[in-house]
């Protein structure tokens, strides 16, 4: 019961922050509310007893990416320091809202119609041990993930280099 109350609070935070994030006209404020959403999602992970995932979420998203956004916003436009005013075209808003609502209804229908929700009534309420996560992450056996892990590390390296290449100032010839 406490879990449900906790979840409701988190859900309100997430959805409220997301709505503000999307509707605010100030880009800086949007970034800030994104941070709240990310914290909320991390909270959901904690509720699911995926502590490690929640931690990673906070560390990478909240700690890393939000900083990146804020720096980018500040670098891109001096005006955005004061908050960027956007004009929004009514037609696109209406179309987007319509399609989003339609999609929401559709997915809701899918959720209600499917039975896999029922067969998962008994959810094991147990923390995944840290050592298991660690072993699986660097193990090479079945259901172990050293290969994606390595792949992602190389991928991140490539992204770092690519990011630098793209963003650096061109040499003056």
């Amino acid at each position: 019961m406490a879990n449900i109350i906790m979840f409701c609070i988190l859900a309100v935070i997430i959805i409220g922050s997301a709505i503000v994030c999307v509707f605010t006209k100030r880009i800086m404020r949007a970034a800030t509310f994104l941070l709240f959403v990310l914290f909320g999602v991390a909270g959901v992970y904690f509720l699911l007893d995926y502590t490690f995932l929640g931690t990673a979420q906070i560390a990478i998203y909240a700690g890393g990416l939000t900083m990146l956004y804020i720096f980018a916003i500040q670098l891109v436009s001096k005006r955005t320091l004061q908050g960027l005013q956007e004009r929004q075209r009514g037609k696109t808003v209406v179309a987007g809202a319509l399609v989003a609502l339609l999609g929401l209804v559709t997915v809701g229908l899918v959720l209600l119609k499917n039975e896999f929700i029922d067969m998962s009534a008994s959810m094991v309420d147990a923390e995944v041990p840290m050592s298991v996560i660690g072993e699986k992450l660097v193990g090479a056996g079945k259901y172990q993930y050293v290969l994606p892990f390595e792949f992602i590390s190389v991928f991140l390296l490539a992204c770092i280099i690519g990011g630098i290449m793209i963003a650096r100032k061109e040499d003056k010839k």
Partner: protein
Amino acid sequence: MIPVELLLGLSTVLFFIGFFGFVTRRNLIAMLISIELVLNSVDINFAVFNRILHPGELEGFYFSLFSIGINAAETAVAIAIILNVYRRFHSDQVNSIENMKL
């Protein structure tokens, strides 16, 4: 115990809020933020499905984990591109990059 419908409903709502943001915002960075919302909702879904359908396994867990990592990389590159666009066009509006279309 949290009902699964609520968890999935949350991720769905988050997804469509993100989508709505993506199609309405004109600022490149705001669009990127909306994409982050969408990706987060998907991550929640992975975790939830893992928890519901295969409690003993950790596929969804790791998928979410890697997804978080890749999101980070993607965002970094996207921001690098946005910075470049800004430098070149002196605007961070999406419709400023129109001379690539026919």
